[in-house]
């Protein structure tokens, strides 16, 4: 269930109030905090995935190399994609809840309730 920061729904805001926040240095900081994670992470996982697809298409001898028992590089590489997906999802949640959410909530409240200083 939702846990609003204050009782009841926040007061309505106009588009002008929202747009005004865009030029606030705190918003620029918020944006930087988000982009600092999502841009490198996106480039990283897409490159890692494309490498996997390209190796599956063009480096079959390498992918077929047996590592132990009946387990080959292709299987480990595939499982590696699972592991990296879980790790990025977990890492992003951790990063966002520490470095992004508190600031986002601060700005949300500043827009809806005005400055409390």
């Amino acid at each position: 269930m939702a846990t609003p920061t204050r009782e009841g729904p926040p007061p309505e805001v106009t588009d002008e109030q929202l747009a005004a926040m865009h030029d606030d240095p705190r918003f620029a900081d918020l944006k930087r905090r988000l982009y600092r994670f999502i841009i490198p992470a996106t480039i990283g996982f897409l490159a890692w995935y494309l490498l996997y697809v390209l190796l599956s298409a063009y480096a079959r001898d390498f992918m077929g190399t047996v590592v132990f028992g009946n387990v080959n590089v292709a299987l480990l590489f595939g499982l590696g994609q699972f592991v990296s997906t879980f790790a990025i999802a977990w890492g992003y949640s951790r990063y966002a809840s520490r470095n992004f959410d508190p600031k986002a909530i601060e700005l949300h409240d500043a827009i809806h309730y005005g400055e409390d200083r």
Partner: protein
Amino acid sequence: MDILAQAEGSGRTLTMVLFLATVAVTIGITVWGHRYTRTATDFHSGGRSFSSWQNGFAIASDYMSAASFLGIAGTIALFGYDGFLYSIGFLVAWLVALLLVAEMLRNTGRFTMADVLSFRMRQRPVRTAAAVSTLSVSIFYLLAQMVGAGALIALLLGIQEGETYLGMDAATAKIAGIVLVGLIMTLYVALGGMKGNTWVQIFQAIILVGGAAVLTIMVLAQYGFNVSDLLGDAASASGQGAAFLEPGLRYGVEVPGDAVQTMWNKLDLVSLGLALVLGTAGLPHVLIRFYTVPDARVARKSINWGIGLIGAFYLMTLVLGFGAAAIVGVEAITAQNPAGNTAAPQLAEVVGGDVGGTTLGAVMLAVIASAAFAAILSTVSGLVIASSSSLAHDLYNAVIRHGKATEREEVGVAKLASIGIGVVAILLAIFAQDLNVAFLVGLAFAVAASANLPTLLLSLFWKRFNTSGALWGIYGGLISSIALVVFSPVFSGAETSLLGEGVDIAWFPMSNPGLVSIPLGLICAVVGTRMSDESRSDRFATLQVRALTGAGSERAVDH
């Protein structure tokens, strides 16, 4: 040998009873959901009050279709490693949704993808384009699932050519299956709206993941939990040896002595990989799930639940696929269904039988068959809700009524639309039941990746983007994906084509258009933007603040 047919009377009755029990429970949930569906927010977004685990289970349920359960397990059973390749693309794709789309979409829009696309554009043309694209993706996907469902129900009940069950022969059972699935999905949506449907999907996810987990453990137990032994057995039973555990038997096939065909096959594999990873975050039924939670943080957490469930499920299909190859055997599987769709149910029967005799075999078969049935129903109902929301909210309210329709009116139209879509889907599926429509799932992903994702990302991140760019992007991506498939071997010119070998208009050499259509969709969007002077930087400022802080976004409603 006909393994399913051997189950005969008792097994079939058990399967039928479990089917009916599942349907009864879900319809009960739907009727309950109906009592709480009043406003447009209730119908389209379930009141925005679902928690992260609830939405996570519903996300998994929406996403795990019969194609990704029976289809992937079957592909692994017949072609080995290449089935796994499919599931990897399906899973990694969730990172696009998580990192770039879900939270900002939740904060910016209300009910549909078009809410975000049209935020700073001229409403009517952009919403029309978004509705056209949403409907195309939904109908392609829906058709593939429903044609599959008809054949599947006949197979799961073990009705063979020339046999009858409850007075139905195989052909009648197929049509009955299509009509039944169509009626149930329409009922879920028209009656339960998003609220009822989400609870139904949560229930279905539990059946699906639970059933698959039990079977996976039973298979692994047969090998003393030694995966390497299982792989070894699968490879030797397949007759392919080590090649069965390597990529290349199904996708990117190397044709000896034909370097050109080999090149196209490999590019086709890359093309498929791109569409899989970029398509998910543009699927309308996936996107609207992010509106069912109170805020962006819950949307993020719900995707993590979804990634966990979907990832675990695909790891299980890997075991089930190789298990079916090792324990059931390729010959027994293809004898039942040439595409391998019955590999998982057949495996359930054999493994159950090994552990606890014919009775447990029949029980396991019934459990896995019901899980597959749940997978079909939860995906098709998600598609019906996405397309009826878009018809009512985008086309009817915004385009036809200029945004002046009341909530009651919009909900009424959405319910009517869901019935209309249900009827159209049933008729199309009956008409197409004997055609090879498996390619439609790939086409749905290609359209989502080429038309929806580029315009969605440009809307959220590119200041200059405008109406003309959005229209060019959507129509460019949509038309190029469909046209390339029409002129490809999946449509004509080959034995396995939709139109058969007799007609040959194929000049595009790849079955998957993504490699061409995704960049083309993006280029169209950029060129279209440059061709118009419209630029609303004030609206972009509003959009960005809203997207990142959640200020001014729709709240949850309490009942």
